């Protein structure tokens, strides 16, 4: 039985036999995760619903015959009515609640996205730098975070409002400025464990230095938990904005948000429950969808499945 063993370690036989089943392009971990996410029915349904709400918020007010701030004197306090086109009824000032609800969606969703992105950018950078630097730098940075945690949020926002007036950009900044703290902590924790991984050691051995390691090796590998946290942060931000508006510190007329609408609706709760009901339902559904998507993302990105 001659020719039994192939001696050369580098024969072509090795190369051709070792190729994995042909797939066009590589199958990255993100693609794997996306596939898993798509199989999660709740998450997919939520994404569709969210998309519909978003599209409606943008397009609805443009298509509606009733402008956002137009007052219809004879419809003040009138409930939902399919025939006259006021699907959600009118608010306390006689404006079309349907249009206002959709319009409010623009603001609420925008705050959610923008403030979260702000928190993300600041938090991830801060956390990754602190975690990678370690030692005293890390200590200093994280103690700063602890101190900032201690500042009462409301106090901070009110201060900002007093100094700069009620400005929508300001609201984004205020919210983002507070929410990055959590993100920083999470990313720092991730970074601490990533720092010890062999592929980071290998990169250092390959001559990659500090900032490049953080940028190319650490941050991309923290994005999993970061993305999950983000989808759970957006609802939180929307709620914060709603709360601010509820208190009267939020957006100014004629702009409106779900929080403002809920605030107004709450005052009319007994006589005109629809004024509270519809905006609250939109808010509730949006938050639910975001939570489902967050759960789905977490399952999809779970390293246990790999």
């Amino acid at each position, binding site marked *: 039985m001659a020719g*039994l*063993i*192939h*001696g050369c*370690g580098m024969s072509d*036989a*090795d190369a051709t*036999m*070792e190729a994995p*089943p042909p797939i066009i392009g590589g199958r990255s971990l993100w693609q794997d995760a996306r596939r898993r996410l798509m199989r999660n029915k709740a998450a997919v349904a939520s994404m569709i619903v969210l998309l519909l709400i978003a599209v409606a918020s943008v397009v609805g007010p443009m298509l509606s015959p009733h402008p956002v701030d137009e007052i219809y004197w004879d419809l003040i306090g009138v409930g939902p009515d399919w025939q006259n086109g006021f699907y959600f009824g009118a608010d306390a000032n006689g404006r079309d609640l349907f249009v206002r609800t959709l319009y409010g969606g623009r603001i609420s969703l925008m705050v959610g996205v923008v403030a979260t992105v702000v928190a993300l950018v600041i938090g991830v950078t801060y956390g990754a730098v602190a975690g990678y630097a370690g030692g005293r730098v890390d200590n200093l940075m994280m103690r700063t975070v602890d101190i900032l945690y201690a500042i009462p949020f409301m106090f901070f926002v009110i201060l900002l409002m007093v100094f700069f007036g009620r400005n929508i950009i300001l609201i984004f900044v205020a919210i983002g400025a507070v929410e990055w703290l959590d993100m920083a902590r999470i990313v720092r924790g991730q970074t601490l464990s990533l720092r010890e991984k062999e592929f980071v050691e290998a990169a250092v051995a390959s001559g990659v230095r500090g900032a490049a390691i953080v940028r190319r090796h650490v941050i991309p590998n923290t994005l999993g938990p970061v993305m999950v946290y983000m989808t759970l942060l957006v609802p939180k931000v929307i709620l914060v904005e709603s709360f601010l508006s509820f208190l009267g510190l939020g957006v100014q007329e004629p702009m409106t948000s779900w929080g403002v609408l809920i605030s107004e609706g709450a005052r009319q709760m007994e006589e005109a429950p629809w004024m509270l009901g519809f905006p609250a339902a939109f808010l509730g559904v949006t938050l639910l969808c975001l939570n489902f998507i967050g759960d789905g993302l977490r399952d999809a990105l779970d390293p246990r499945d790999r």
Partner: protein
Amino acid sequence: MENPSPLEPLLKVKDLHTKFTGPDGDVNAVNGVTFEIKAGETVGVVGESGSGKSQTFMSILGLLARNGVASGSAEFHGEELIGASNRTLNKVRGRAIGTIFQDPMTSLNPYLPIGRQLTEMLTVHRKVKAKEARYAAAQILSTVGLPDPSAQLRRYPHQLSGGMRQRVMVAMALIADPELLIADEPTTALDVTVQAQILELLRSVGRDRHRSVILISHDFGVVAGLADRILVMYAGAIVEQGPAADLFRAPRHPYTRALMACTRGLDPEAGLPADGDLAVELPPGHLPSIPGQPPDLRRLPMGCAFQPRCAQARARCLLSAPENYAVGPDRLSACFLERKGMAPKLVPSS
């Protein structure tokens, strides 16, 4: 321990199949495994990763992960274990069959002192009273070579070294006096000098009480010193089995021969007669290797699973999987090459 009839095998496994459902397709971990274990013999099960050597015994013990399903038959003293109820399995596990796993740190409960984990085996399985159980626990710790056994009873796993923990594992497996001991890669995580100690221990454990031992390993060297018989596994099936001395002296199946050549290539001391063909092929300083890699268990080839890497493959090997052919007394090899004019196909004994 009852002395079983010497003629009846302790464990009879017939046509065992195990599948794991998964998102990327079902993993066929065990594909038609048939073998017997007699009382008092030590059997070595050798295979690389993906060979199914661990999953075979996990299936028999009912310890499969939630997405695993086993079919076929595994009779222990005539009692069917595949698909048996938890009650039946619990009676057998621990009491009649003891198990040792690779990593003692994850097999031992870090929150309980080891004395407690040992006595638990007795109080649960043999309904022994606490005080007697403690005495037995100290005895068994002494048997496995732990110094100062009574003091050790109070210690926690993390206070012990790796070798000592593995000895505790052996003690736990033995304390209920099982007839069969299954050791799955018991020394892989240990230093080589400690491995030698544990292997010595396992050898005495089998000899002493006429106990059967199944030693699973990827290392031929580890089983060489202990096994009476050897099963060689590849891609979820047994490709060759037979008495250890025979198998080492004259391996038949191409995979066995290739694997042994790889192992021996590293060990000139192994000293067995060169097969002649090996020495010729290699450039100086090169080790024999097997090209390619083990098959994807989700997509097993239609014919022989080893065929893609086999230098002897013929057209026949692509079309169907070989049966187990007798190649000597108590020797089987699953390779079509054995067919040519040799003993007739062996029907698996019922």
